[in-house]
């Protein structure tokens, strides 16, 4: 191969990297994410759309979201209710769409399985949201519930809401090293991923994100004093708010 062909190759590569860098800056500018929260883009990449929410945002200049979930949606361990991830998500999205009215209603209730959340689905529907962010799988893992009915429940819930013009986004379980020693969330995370695949839903991989933070020593959840644990919970929820907002924005554009 001659030298010029090689140089051309290098130039093309450099040009491609410049384009990528420019794109990255643009995307970064979209939702500014604090450095401590950042994870590789590939980790949260998901090209599924949020068609109904995008439509409502365009028409009404408003976006109403319900956060349906268990203990961590409720905000256990945080310093105050406004530090839970649904509130942080509202904050991050409002920065992104300053002209729109963004509301996130927190319907997280402690220690609930997907089945128990379905029993109060009427409360969710009554809020008339455009998007439901559904955090689940932890209670199933802890209680070692059956996987197949879990999948059926998720599908039924997603389909019910889709029929009412509500988009659904899924969030899987959280990660800490000590917790991994004593429970196994893999079957339930797989189940959530399956449902996301089947209905082409956006999945926010909370487990992978938190595992990345821990593995890369950005955060630790081990041997913390009570004050440190509260600070860590606030930071995690804040970061989740930013990253979920990023996924929502990406999905709104994907239509």
């Amino acid at each position, binding site marked *: 191969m001659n030298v010029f062909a090689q140089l051309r190759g290098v130039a093309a590569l450099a040009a491609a990297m410049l384009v990528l860098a420019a794109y990255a800056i643009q995307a970064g500018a979209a939702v500014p994410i604090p450095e401590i929260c950042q994870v590789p883009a590939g980790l949260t990449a998901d090209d599924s759309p949020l068609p109904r929410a995008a439509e409502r945002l365009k028409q009404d200049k408003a976006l109403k979201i319900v956060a349906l979930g*268990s*203990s*961590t949606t409720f905000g*256990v*361990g*945080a310093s105050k209710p406004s530090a839970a991830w649904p509130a942080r998500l509202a904050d991050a999205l409002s920065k992104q769409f300053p002209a729109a009215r963004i509301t996130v209603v927190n319907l997280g209730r*402690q*220690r609930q399985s997907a089945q128990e959340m379905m029993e109060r689905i009427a409360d969710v529907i009554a809020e008339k949201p455009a998007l439901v962010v559904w955090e689940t799988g*932890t*209670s199933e*893992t*802890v*209680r*070692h*519930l*059956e*996987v*197949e009915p879990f*999948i*059926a429940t998720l*599908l*039924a819930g997603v389909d019910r809401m889709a029929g009412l013009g509500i988009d659904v986004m899924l969030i899987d379980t*959280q990660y*800490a*090293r*000590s*917790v*991994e*020693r*004593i*429970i*196994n969330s*893999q079957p339930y995370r*797989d189940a959530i*991923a*399956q449902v996301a*695949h*089947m*209905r082409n839903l956006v999945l926010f991989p909370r487990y992978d994100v938190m595992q990345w933070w821990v*593995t890369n020593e950005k955060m630790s*959840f*081990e*041997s*913390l004093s*009570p004050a440190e*644990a*509260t600070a*860590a*919970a606030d930071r*995690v929820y804040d970061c989740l708010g930013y990253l979920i907002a990023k996924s929502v924005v990406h999905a709104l554009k994907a239509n």
Partner: protein
Amino acid sequence: MSTPGRDLRLDFFRGLGLLFIFVDHIPDNAAAYFTMANFVFNDAAELFVFISGYAAATVFGGILDRHGAPFAITQVLKRCWTLYVAHIFLFVIFVANVAYTATRFNNPMFIEEMNVASFLAEPHVAVVKALALQFHPNFMGILPLYIVLLLGFALLLPLLRVKPVPILAGSGLLYLAAPVFHLNVTAYPEGVWYFNPLAWQFLFVIGATLGLAKTQQTLRFHRRPAIIAASAAFLLACLVAKTWMTVAGFYDAVPPGTPEFVWLIGDKTNLGPLRLLNFLALAHLAVVAVPGNFFDGRRGWPQPVILCGQNSLNIFCLGIFLSFTAHLVLVEASNALAMQLGVSAAGVLIMIGVARFLAWSRGRSREPASARAIQGGE
């Protein structure tokens, strides 16, 4: 090492099942992509339960014929006791791990996850529930199932010898009724048994019936071209469908709008019909394709697997313990791909090594007195 006339195919496939169970039980392990669960709808659990039924029938059926029902039943019960003690041993290891973690890890953000340790607040209840086989944490469901199935088998064995058809029919009816009427055994702290014994008993009874049947009779049936063709066609369809699901990403291959009941035919708790039929087709073709003397006198690669199968209880418990240890290593050290493959390979080597040691040790202890034939009935 093996008693003469022993069907080494049973040992081989049971050994293979035990190795698969070990690899499958390490969460987030890439090596688990090489086990049968990725290519067919059943997994090693079916293999283990079926062969356990078959082997129990051949071993204890022989004792029944030579020494009569009361002695055969006591031998089955002795075996149950051994399994029970092994289960309690594994349970103690589990409790030690949970208690250690729960005492040291105190982070309110994970309060829901730590609920898995809530039984520590009422040890008086938890221990009794464990002794009553109602408390089986992660991955500890199959041994209680085996114990209960073998207990039932102790009563069933004499009847199965004389009237196999009504017993098999009754067992099949119970299998069908279990999911329809939601029959299962309650578990502690909540829920039901992960392996529903009322459903899984059918596979054990099928194995036991075949184990007691005259080999010539069943072989004539197994070798009918039409039966072979039916099994092969069904197995091929399952193989293609499941492999496609694995490659394409689990249920991605299932079209949207698939009715919910379709999920239940692959249900593991109630041994869904798809899993059962898939396994039976697989077992049938294995019996036809692998002749009875295939492994006799054969050295080389099948030998270590056969040894694992011949020491099934010890190797099963060791496998559960090792998968647990491997998981700890992945959590604490690194979960890189190389580590996943490394701990899986190390575990398999340890299981084979221990199986070899057990075989050697048993061979030695037999030398002076060769009259202890019953002990071979693993």
